């Protein structure tokens, strides 16, 4: 009751201008991490290495945008890694086994991903299967389908230009795949910030019943969110195929956990209603820089796993503490 009288005297801060939301902590962490690595290694703070980091986060970054939407509405999507593999295999099969033009094969692969997302969305909204369960089911189904397409075999031998999408740095710094990631980031950011559809996701995540009574079509929005997440996973699969110059059905195992970690490090709450693309980008960068930095430092692979786990726990705990105090 006191707070009513006092109000909050501070005007909206600069951070909200960039809609960082709860991500100021992770941003500080990221900057500290970069500062530390710049001093600790000769090779971290070089244009070449930073461009490598951008390369290395493309797949995670694209998937994390979709996951941000899902987590914003209070959902979870465990199927992203499997859908990534399914999309890859559909593309590889259509282009190399059936001889279809690669661009067309890519479009069809994205449609296949969308179909998988639509199925999970419908399971959640029409049959009231919890998101955790329906995406868990899709994770298994999509992985199985990806394996069935070639009976578990990899496919290689794509046209030369395809691999080059992930290699040639236009203007000295921008590969097509990195550019694609930046476009996805920008589109996601604008969507959440400046469109009614994006604002509605916050309302749904904040309280579904409030959103429904406010006239928001919660079911349709939910289905569209899962479709978007699936399509972006499919797109990430195409990017990964370009990066590896091959496709294999075992790709993307456990990527869902990396993706969720990135979104959560970025300040989103798993109960929905808070989070944003700016935070997610920071989360993706934290994971990317950390992996890269630990390799550069020559930290042993087993120690790396420990460090990454500790960082995830610290990032989220710090955010929760900050909220309690604030």
């Amino acid at each position: 009751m006191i707070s009513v009288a006092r109000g909050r005297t501070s005007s909206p801060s600069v951070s909200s201008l960039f809609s960082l939301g709860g991500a100021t902590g992770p941003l500080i962490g990221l900057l500290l991490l970069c500062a530390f690595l710049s001093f600790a290694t000769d090779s971290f703070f070089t244009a070449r290495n930073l461009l490598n980091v951008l390369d290395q986060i493309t797949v995670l970054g694209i998937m994390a945008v979709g996951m941000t939407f899902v987590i914003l509405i209070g959902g979870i999507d465990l199927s992203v890694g499997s859908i990534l593999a399914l999309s890859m295999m559909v593309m590889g099969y259509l282009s190399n086994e059936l001889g279809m033009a690669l661009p067309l094969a890519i479009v069809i692969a994205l449609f296949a991903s969308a179909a998988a997302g639509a199925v999970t969305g419908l399971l959640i909204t029409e049959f009231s299967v919890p998101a955790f369960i329906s995406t868990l089911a899709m994770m298994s189904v999509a992985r199985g389908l990806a394996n069935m397409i070639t009976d578990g075999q990899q496919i290689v031998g794509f046209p030369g230009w395809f691999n080059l999408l992930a290699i040639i740095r236009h203007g000295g710094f921008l590969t097509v795949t990195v550019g694609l990631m930046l476009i996805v980031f920008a589109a996601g950011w604008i969507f959440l910030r400046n469109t009614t559809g994006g604002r509605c996701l916050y309302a749904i995540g904040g309280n579904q019943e409030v959103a429904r009574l406010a006239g928001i079509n919660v079911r349709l929005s939910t289905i569209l969110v899962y479709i978007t997440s699936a399509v972006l996973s499919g797109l990430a699969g195409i990017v990964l195929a370009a990066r590896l110059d091959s496709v294999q059905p075992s790709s993307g195992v456990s990527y869902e956990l990396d993706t969720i970690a990135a979104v959560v490090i970025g300040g989103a709450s798993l109960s929905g209603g808070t989070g944003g693309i700016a935070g997610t980008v920071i989360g993706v960068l934290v994971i990317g820089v950390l992996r890269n930095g630990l390799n550069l430092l020559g930290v042993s692979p087993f120690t790396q796993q420990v460090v990454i786990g500790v960082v995830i726990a610290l990032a989220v705990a710090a955010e929760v503490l900050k909220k309690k105090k604030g």
Partner: protein
Amino acid sequence: MAEVKSPILSLRQIKKSYGPLQILHGIDLDIHEGEVVALLGENGAGKSTVSNIICGTIRPSSGSMTWRGAEYAPANPREAIDSGLGLIHQELRLLPHLTIAENVFVGRWPKSRGQIDRKAMERKAQEQLERLGLDLPANRKVEGLSTANQQLVEIAKALTLNARLLILDEPTAALGDAETELLFKQIDRLRADGVGIIYISHRLEEIRRIADRIVVMRDGAKVQEFDKGDVPVRTIVESMVGRELGRMFPHFPPVGDDVTFEVKDLTSALDAFHDVSFKVHKGEVFGIAGLVGAGRTELVRAITGADPISAGSIYLDGKDVTPRSPGQSIRNGIVLVPEDRKLQGLVLEHSISENIGYANMKAVAPKKWVSKKAIDSFAAANIHRFGVKGQGHQNADEMSGGNQQKVVLAKWLATDPKVVVLDEPTRGIDVGARSSIYDIIVELSAKGICVIVVSSDLEEVLGVSNRILVMAEGRQAGILDRANANDVSVMELATS
């Protein structure tokens, strides 16, 4: 009666400050055995701070307390409970997936040989329910119980703690008249047993009925103490708000005959009500009364598309507007201000601006393109228009109940509706905020908007409505004109 009993709890010069801000200014208070003391005051007057200090949730900055003759300074709620204190919160804190018995005994389950003795637990809980006149099996799950019944389970829980002093914070906010009467019987019994009770409520009529003494607080200080409960309502209110009131309810003008809104043979797909028909005239305030469980809330939810309909139709200006979703209803200009503002009206951890924006996306962003600036200025205009005390960037959960309710109203009324449905518009909010909500209702009606008001507060329904629809067990029991409506005629229909 006070002179023959010794005080069980005394507060002397209790003060509380947060930094330079003093919010309690030296409170003296005595509670005697077998006495019901009503603690009154507008939101922000300091009632909750006093009850939190007694319960050990907050520690006072200075002052002392004695409990049954000994010095008393609880460090935490556990110590207060162990001393024999029971607090029943305004918000329900039951675990929905456990049974009533498990909830009553949560954390102190009766055990035999290391295992929970379910039989003993259920038997004891059942006794307690029967004492409260609650006809429910103790092994039923709490999930799905009506709000009123959940409230009674909360009270049963406190009673099993053998409390010597009970603090009831708005215990009847969710109760209908019949349940309230049951609760009062129980309070009378406790009083006879020598239990002291601090009773916090905004319903002045029931305080007159139940209280032995009334303590009125304003701005963190005790402003007046009445040595009897039966004080005229106007006197109490004047002491609470610190000024003389002209009237409790504003004057509602009579309305014409032209029908704008019509509900015809409406039947719930959830089996909550059947065959309800009524017409609302332009600018009319149409009340809906009934006991808890009569189907009032379900009826208005169905009218506004929130719950499904199995038969019947709804017309606005002669056009069929039977809704299939809340969105459709809003587009037709029919809005529901829902019963529970915290669960249905607001996203508590989002800002006021955003909350207002969610229901007004069309107005804020006609081309589906929104900017923070557009939402903020739209919200600011409506915050001003409806007298919300607060700023757009504040989170909804930082506000008092009255202000939250005004935000919810602002959120819906900003859509420029033709029909406004208010479900329990003044539940749990203070007198000052109430009268401004009544003023808003008058304003709407003057503009020719149909206003439908559902309320458990009979005095309120009678005070604001041009006509009253009374529901009983899912049926339409009758419609009363203002001239024929009084508490007797309404209760007769409601219990028919």
